[in-house]
């Protein structure tokens, strides 16, 4: 291998780790088991310590434990990873068992196993600290917070091998993982070994976790497994794309975090864009990586097309606007209905009273109707144009069709149907409308000519001559 600068080496390691954690973590996020990563990371500690103790065990005559003199560091490191992997998987298996055979729910089961295993790990690591030896103690600090900056070439090789193994597994079992994530019941019905699949999936998670632990630490490893997948979910509904995006987000967080904490960005730009009164150089790499991931998550949450919060808010606003416009037309129609075929003027104030709108809202809506050629403004108020009357007729018909349907089909009193129809009229599709017409026509609720607006089945609240409601018009 060519000599890599340290930053480049760390960047390679963290980005690869981020990518593979993102890909494997996507499955956990999809299966609503996001916090299993947290569980694995905590449950790995007792395994690490046990492996260390086992490696350094000596007969009592030699003083029980002493640091291995013969074993090389790499072998010891590998053994500790195997121990961590084992207790992690045992923890996940215990959660599965507890959920299946006791009344404890999954969230509590995860909490119980996580805290108990971690407690045991803390005890074991304290025992190790108390050993009368000085070399290569499993430092708890490193385990909790990680030490990305101290990444060695061997560590990067470990990550590369682990990433290759995980990616190979995911590729080989892609179809199975896909079906199992979205519809475990179907997978069982297909006769697949779901327990083995589940454990394989958890195995890949555990593998990523134990290899990543020395780099980013326990809590932040859980973050690496959750955040990219949760962020990628905003961008797509296809699993393949989600895995790719999740991998990219994970890698991006790794690269960004490494560059920021190594001060590379600062030296490139000549100033530190992220410094809030302080230098960002020499910040701990793991947490910075996570915060980069968080930033990408927030961007996804807000700005992703279709699923993002902003897009959804705009959609909601669009629907609200359409409903308000349709309601305006219907109100105008119903207010002037008694004077048809004339198109009388409706005082603005009455329109405001008719709806629970503010005057400003009414003015905005009227302005829209004006530009669309559906409403004319005049000194005294507003009136429908003939085009506007056509549009309003459609809306009123839908409203009254639904009212008649409720009266005829659901036996609701005529004075109770107005509100229900209000909420549904805007969402009646042409197919439903046709079906309603056919049914109501057959029952004799509709005027025989098609396309005619039926009369309202209940008294209308107000008409245009601003009489107080409820009073009969004086007979001339």
């Amino acid at each position, binding site marked *: 291998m060519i000599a890599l600068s340290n930053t480049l080496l760390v960047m390679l390691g963290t980005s690869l780790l981020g990518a593979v954690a993102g890909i494997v973590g996507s499955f956990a996020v999809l299966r609503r088991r996001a916090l299993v990563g947290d569980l694995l990371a905590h449950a790995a500690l007792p395994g690490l310590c046990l492996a260390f103790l086992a490696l350094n065990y000596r007969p009592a005559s030699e003083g029980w434990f002493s640091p291995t003199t013969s074993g090389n560091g790499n072998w010891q490191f590998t053994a500790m990873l195997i121990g961590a992997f084992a207790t992690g998987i045992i923890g996940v298996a215990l959660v599965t068992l507890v959920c299946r*055979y006791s009344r404890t*729910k999954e969230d509590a089961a995860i909490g*119980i196993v996580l805290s108990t295993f971690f*407690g045991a790990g803390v005890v074991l690591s304290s025992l190790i600290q108390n050993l009368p030896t000085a070399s290569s103690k499993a430092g708890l600090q490193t385990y*909790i*917070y990680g030490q990305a900056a101290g990444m060695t070439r061997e560590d990067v090789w470990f990550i590369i091998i682990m990433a290759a193994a995980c990616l190979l597994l995911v590729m080989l079992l892609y179809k199975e993982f896909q079906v199992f994530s979205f519809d475990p019941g179907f997978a069982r019905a297909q006769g697949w070994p779901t327990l083995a699949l589940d454990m394989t999936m958890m195995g890949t998670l555990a593998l990523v976790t134990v290899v990543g632990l020395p780099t980013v630490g326990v809590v932040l490893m*859980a*973050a690496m497994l959750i*955040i990219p997948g949760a962020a990628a979910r905003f961008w797509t509904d296809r699993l393949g794309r989600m895995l790719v995006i999740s991998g990219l987000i994970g890698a991006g967080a790794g690269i960004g975090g490494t560059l920021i904490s190594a001060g590379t960005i600062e030296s490139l730009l000549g100033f530190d864009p992220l410094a809030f009164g302080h230098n960002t150089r020499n910040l701990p790499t793991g947490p910075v990586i996570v915060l980069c991931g968080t930033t990408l*998550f927030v961007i996804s949450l807000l700005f992703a097309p279709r699923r993002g919060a902003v897009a959804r808010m705009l959609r909601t606003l669009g629907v609200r606007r359409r409903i308000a416009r349709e309601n305006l037309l219907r109100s105008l129609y119903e207010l002037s209905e008694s004077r048809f075929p004339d198109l009388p003027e409706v005082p603005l104030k009455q329109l405001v009273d008719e709806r629970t709108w503010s005057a400003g809202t009414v003015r905005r809506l009227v302005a829209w109707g004006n530009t669309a050629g559906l409403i004319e403004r005049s000194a005294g108020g507003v009136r429908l144009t003939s085009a506007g009357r056509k549009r309003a007729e459609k809306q009123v018909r839908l409203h009254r069709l639904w009212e008649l349907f409720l009266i005829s089909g659901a036996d609701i009193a005529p004075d109770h149907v107005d509100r229900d129809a209000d909420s549904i009229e805007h969402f009646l599709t042409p197919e439903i409308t046709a079906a309603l017409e056919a049914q109501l026509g057959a029952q004799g609720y509709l005027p025989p000519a098609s396309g005619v607006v039926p009369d309202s089945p209940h008294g209308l609240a107000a008409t245009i001559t601003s009489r107080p409601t409820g009073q009969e018009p004086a007979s001339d």
Partner: protein
Amino acid sequence: MTEWFSSLNVQVQDAVLVIGIATLTNVACALLGCYLVLRRMSLLGDALSHAVLPGLIVAFILAGSMNIVYMFAGALAVGLLTTFLTQAVHRQGNVPADAAIGVVFTSLFALGVILIKRYGQGVDLDPDCVLYGQIDLVEFYTVSLGGFEVPRALVSIAPVLALNVAVILLLWKELKISAFDPALATTMGINADRLFYLLMALVALTTVASFEQVGSILVIAMLIVPGATAQLLTDRLSRMMLIAAGVGVVSAVLGYVLSLAWNVSAAGPMAVVAGGCYAAAALASPRYGILSALVRNAQTSLRIVREDLLAMLYRLEELHIERRLGPREATQAVGAGVLAELGLRSLLRRGELARGERGLELTERGRRRAAELVRSHRLWEAYLVEHLGLAADHVHDPAERMEHFIDARLQEQIVADLSNAQQDPHGREIPAGP
């Protein structure tokens, strides 16, 4: 009181202090934990215990030292912020609840770690303390209170425990209803959202008060494990609280003893003891334990074997077969094995079977029991043929299974539904009822 305390020797003083503080901490956590477990929000407890870290550091920076009031304020703010952000990401972002929790608390924790690394120098909050807590050093950190030197931990945890107990007693009914049936709570006009935030605020306060003692990561053990253990042992909320508090006390005492034995910090052993309590309850709880379920299943299997033996011997008598089965033959016929042996032995012991000269004989009592069973079996057969239209040669197997679970009341109902309750579909006589 203080004189009595000073007269004790140092080790005992130490033990009393550590166990006392740990007990208060564990009980404060356990009481709230019951609600967390019932409402399936255990992992929010996990999240809060990590997420208050940045709140603490900010409180530190602002106060310049360990100021309890600032710490509580910071924790409360971050606790409510965590809860709010989690809800917002879950609802506005349409992210599954568990992923929302995961994203929020890990991000806040990362922020906390960065703040510690940057501002943690000069304040006595080192990363180790965040992990283990300092319960073993509790007597070294004291504050003056009314002329007495009181451990600082006591000053922070005692009021929080009192507050938890007060809130739980005051809102007993509301908290209970919203824990078991949120929909009902809403229809009764209880504001579930407000209660939820109140609960989370208490959890945040308790977390911070416990933080110094047991460390951020082991708070989760005390929040979840006692409540989950109690849930396995009882169906009443009041009893659940008491049991959870008991588990907290046991963890404190035993954990301390183990920490002395192993010469390690007390927080780890306490979590392990709590986990051990849960494991014991999960296995041996009378109603919900795994072993109890196994025992119940074994008892049912044994009963079925006994009943099969009786029914078999009854049918031999019914067919006027002179030959009697020996013990070996009889057990072979009902599937052999340990269960069959045990079943036969208990029948002999109960005096429902006797060893005759020719082999096993039904006693009068045994015959009555057997007639009862055969009656159930044949009634069921008749019922299946008459009402479900099954063919007569298809009804034996289901009746073989059902006969063990038809009691007198069900028998009466079946008889009432049958046109002929004297004969089964195979033309055999249905034995008369008692």
